[in-house]
């Protein structure tokens, strides 16, 4: 009889089969990811917390501990609350607009039509275009003199030249502009999320609702929307976190202006900490994002778990 495998005859080192142990093997596989998070997320976070409690500036790089003095000073600054409010308006305004556009887009793309695949590919463009290029394009569209939007409104007789709005010069309109641009960047993502969610709803469930007497609106808001809520919430968490921490659009389009009307936390932190060199105050401003984002994420994740179906 042929011998296929011989049993291990002589004793081998106890480390010979070390990777056959699940615990060891798993630890080795997971280690790079943990190391990566610790070094690239954990360390900067701790550093930021420490900076915010110190008197560190680039002109006087001291590690002197000042307690919560930086935070106190920031809270006494009235423009900080404007910045905080702007951040919320910017974040939730653009997410809401993005979601509405996303839902409409998803519904339009759900029905088959000629060229749907091309449209589906093109719709991703705002997401794929570098933010700097996109913002500059938008800057021209909102320009006080050359705005193509104003030109269209005037040419179609809706406004006269005198009534044409100065998009980036008016505090409210400037906020509207950055909301629109961010929503425009976000909505392809929202479309993808909605499409994934809606196509995952079993046809039987939708048919059952139809036969049960539900019309278009009831089907959408009582059946489909609640069923895709978990996946929507995930998308929304991403959107909120990215928008809340974002400074690129503000930096490129308005520089926080006019008169601080579009200054958001990320931008203010960057201006104070990096541009002005006051690292301690910059870090303290940025850290105001932490509790807000923490609350949003915890709330959303709990919500999803509760709604799990």
């Amino acid at each position, binding site marked *: 009889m042929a011998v296929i495998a011989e049993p291990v005859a002589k004793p081998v080192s106890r480390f010979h089969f070390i990777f056959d142990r699940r615990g060891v093997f798993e630890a080795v596989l997971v280690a790079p990811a943990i190391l990566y998070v610790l070094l690239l997320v954990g360390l900067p976070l701790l550093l930021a917390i420490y900076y915010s409690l110190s008197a560190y500036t680039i002109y006087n790089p001291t590690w002197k501990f000042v307690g919560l003095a930086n935070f106190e000073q920031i809270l006494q600054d009235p423009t900080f609350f404007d910045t905080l409010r702007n951040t919320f308006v910017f974040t939730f305004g653009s997410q809401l607009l993005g979601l509405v556009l996303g839902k409409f887009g998803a519904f339009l793309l759900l029905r088959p039509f000629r060229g749907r695949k091309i449209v589906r590919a093109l719709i991703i463009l705002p997401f794929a275009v570098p933010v700097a290029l996109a913002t500059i394009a938008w800057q021209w569209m909102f320009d006080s003199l050359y705005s193509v939007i104003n030109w269209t409104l005037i040419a179609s007789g809706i406004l006269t030249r005198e009534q044409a709005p100065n998009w980036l010069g008016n505090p409210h309109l400037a906020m509207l502009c950055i909301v629109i641009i961010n929503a425009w960047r976000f909505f392809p993502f929202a479309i993808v999320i909605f499409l994934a969610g809606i196509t995952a709803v*079993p046809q*039987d*469930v*939708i*048919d*059952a*609702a*139809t*036969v*049960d*007497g*539900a*019309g278009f609106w*009831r089907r959408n808001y*009582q*059946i489909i929307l*609640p*069923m895709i*809520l978990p996946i929507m919430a995930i998308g929304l968490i991403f959107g909120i976190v990215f928008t809340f921490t974002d400074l690129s659009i503000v930096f490129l389009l308005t520089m926080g202006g006019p008169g601080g009307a579009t200054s958001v936390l990320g931008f203010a932190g960057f201006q104070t900490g990096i541009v002005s060199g006051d690292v301690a105050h910059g870090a303290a401003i940025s850290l105001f994002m932490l509790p807000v984002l923490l609350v949003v994420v915890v709330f959303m994740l709990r919500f999803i778990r509760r*709604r799990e*179906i």
Partner: protein
Amino acid sequence: MAAVLTRNIVKTFADVAAVNGISLNVPDGEFMVLLGPSGCGKTTFLRIICGLEQQTSGDLLIGGNVVNDIPPRARGVAMMFQSYGLYPHYTVRNNIAFPLRTQRVSRDEIKKKVEWASQLLGIDHLLDRRPRQLSGGERQRVALARALVREPTALLLDEPLSNLDAKLRTSARQEIKNFQQRVHLTTIHVTHDQVEAMGMGDRIAVIDHGRVRQVGTPTEIYQNPADLFVATFVGAPPMNIVTRNGGGYLGFRPENLLPRRMIEDDAATEFSFRVDRSEYLGSERIVYGVIDGYESKQPITAKLPPAHVAEDSIRPGEWHEFAVKNSALRHFDSSGRHRTRN
């Protein structure tokens, strides 16, 4: 409750006729089964009745009214889907209440009706659960309760038993049938399972390629199939079909093909049967083989009662004298249609 009547319903999908002219009359309170292989158009036909699909041509009447252009929500029919289509984010209570809420029924009335429907189906202890916490059989009952709660004009069942295991299927079959007899509800049940069709239907409509091949009681369908398709689709094993010398086909059920000595009637047709294989199934033994002098596409099967035919009396490789009573022979012409007399 109402009768459902269709007149020459046609539905084409991109030039392919899924339903090719079905005229069917389901009287008030009847349990009608649509039986056919998958892809025969029976589900499409059902979806046309409830309004999920619009027919290309033909008329649909529910309770005597033409409802061709009436949307599903106004037709008053209820449908139970293959995978039940329960709303996963609602409790059982809200699932059952949903059809009432779409009709803007008052809160008190909804509460009363939900209790009525859930008691009727014995699921009143499950009202606060969600569908994912239910077993297959419970889900089915919830779906049935949801279908019944608004007292539909007709109940449409689209393969409702196919997601249940074999044991549960038998009891669910009983339950649906009992229930239907109790409330006397016009029911159209779609299935590809002939046992289900035979056991449940007051009448069966056998459908193939978008056309009705035969409508009749289970006995009629089984005893007097209208054509070769019905003859071979209904019955397990199917009817034996052999080519006749004078053209056309001869059909006989496996249970009618018996050893010559077991048939006392003189008016019988004899065959010389070579046994190839035999299967013991407890209550019966299925014997496969060929018949001398006749051609058949399928092996000839005979269903023998083991109590009367000893196992060692009929063994593979042997030739035996078998016969079929003449009254059990069915004649089909060369196009496959049934011929009443030879």
